[in-house]
C-alpha cells in the first residue's frame, strides 16, 4: 500500500463506494508524502491521508488555536473529550496549533473502507465545526 496506489484506486471507485460524492485529490510532496483529498463542494476542508509503518491516518484540520475564544477554551476541550466516543470513527486531536479530527485504519484496509473513512471524516469535520462554532471567534 502506498500513497500513489491509493490515489490511483480512488479514481476508479464507483459512485456507490464514494457514497455519492465526487473526490478530487493531489499528492503533496515532502519528506512524508500526503494525499490531499477534496470532496467536491467541500474543498475548503480537505481530508489528508498519510501512511505510517502500521496504519493509514486520515486527518481533517478544523481550526487554529487563534480562532478559539480564550474564555471558551476549557469548555471546548471538555466537549471534545465528551464527543470523542459518540462521534463515529473519528477522534479529536491537536497537531501543532491546529485542532483536527482524525481516523486511523489498518494498512490492510480495502478501498471501500478508505472511501468510507474519508466521507465519514469529512462529515464529522463539518458537524464538529457547526456544533462547536460557539467556542470560536
Amino acid at each position, binding site marked *: 500500500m502506498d500513497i500513489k496506489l491509493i490515489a490511483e484506486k480512488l479514481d476508479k471507485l464507483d459512485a456507490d463506494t464514494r457514497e455519492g460524492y465526487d473526490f478530487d485529490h493531489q499528492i*503533496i510532496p515532502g519528506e512524508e508524502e500526503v494525499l490531499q483529498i477534496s470532496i467536491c463542494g467541500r474543498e*475548503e476542508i480537505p481530508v489528508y491521508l498519510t501512511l505510517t509503518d502500521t496504519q493509514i491516518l486520515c486527518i481533517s484540520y478544523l481550526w487554529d488555536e487563534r480562532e478559539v475564544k480564550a474564555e471558551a477554551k476549557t469548555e471546548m476541550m471538555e466537549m471534545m473529550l465528551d464527543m470523542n466516543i459518540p462521534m463515529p470513527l473519528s477522534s479529536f486531536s491537536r497537531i501543532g496549533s491546529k485542532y483536527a479530527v482524525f481516523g486511523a485504519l489498518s494498512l490492510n484496509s480495502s478501498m471501500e473502507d478508505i472511501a468510507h473513512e474519508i466521507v465519514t471524516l469529512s462529515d464529522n469535520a463539518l458537524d464538529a465545526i457547526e456544533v462547536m462554532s460557539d467556542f470560536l471567534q
Partner: protein
Amino acid sequence: MSLLKKIFTAVRGGAREAGEAIVDANSIRILEQEIKDAEGHIAKAKQDLTSVMAKEMQASREIERLKTQSEEYENYAMDALNKGDDALATEIAEKIAGIESELAQQQEVKSSFSAHADRLRELVKKTERQLAEYKRQLTMVKTTDSVQKATSAISDNFSNSNSKMMSATESLERIKQKQREFDDKLKAAEMLDNESSDASLEAKMKQAGIGPQTSSASSVLDRIKAKKGA
C-alpha cells in the same frame, strides 16, 4: 523512561510545532537497533533450543537402550542362578551395576538438557514480549514522526499555494453556501421540469378540446345569440 513519557514530556515542553522533533532521530536508531538485537537473540535462542532438544532426545533414547539392556542382563543373571552358576551370576550382576550407573548418569544428562531447554523457551518468550514492546514503542515514535512530517508538508504546500487561510466557520459557511446553491439549482431544475410538463399537458388538452377553452369571437357571438333567443 518509556517512550510515551518522553513524547509526553516533549509535548508538554512545547515541542508541538511542525518540524520540531518530538523524538530525536537517535532514539529511533537506538530502538531499531534494540529490535534488531532482540530478533537476533530470539533466532540464536531458537537455534540453541533445537540443538538442546536434539540432545535431550538422544539422552532419552540412550536411557531406553540402557533400561532394555539392564532388563536383558537381569534375565541372564536369573538364568545363571537357575543353573546354579553363582560366579557367572555375580559377573552378570557387576555388568548390570555398570549399566545402572551409566543409566543414572544419562538420566542426569537428560534432566540437565531438559532444564536448559526450559530456560531457553522462557528466554524466547521473554524476548518476544520485549520485542513486541520495542515494536509498539517504535510505532508510537514513527507515527508521531510521520504526522509531524505530513503536517509540515501540508503547511508548506498551503503557504506555497498563496491561498488565503480561511477560518473554520468561514469555510463551513462557504461549504453550506455551495450546498444551498446546489439545492436551489436542483429545485429550479425541478420546477422548470414540472412547468414544461404542465405546459405540454395543457397543449395536448387544448388540442383535444378538453379543459378551460379560451374564448373566441364565434363562441362569444353564439353566446349573445343564445341570450337574444331567450
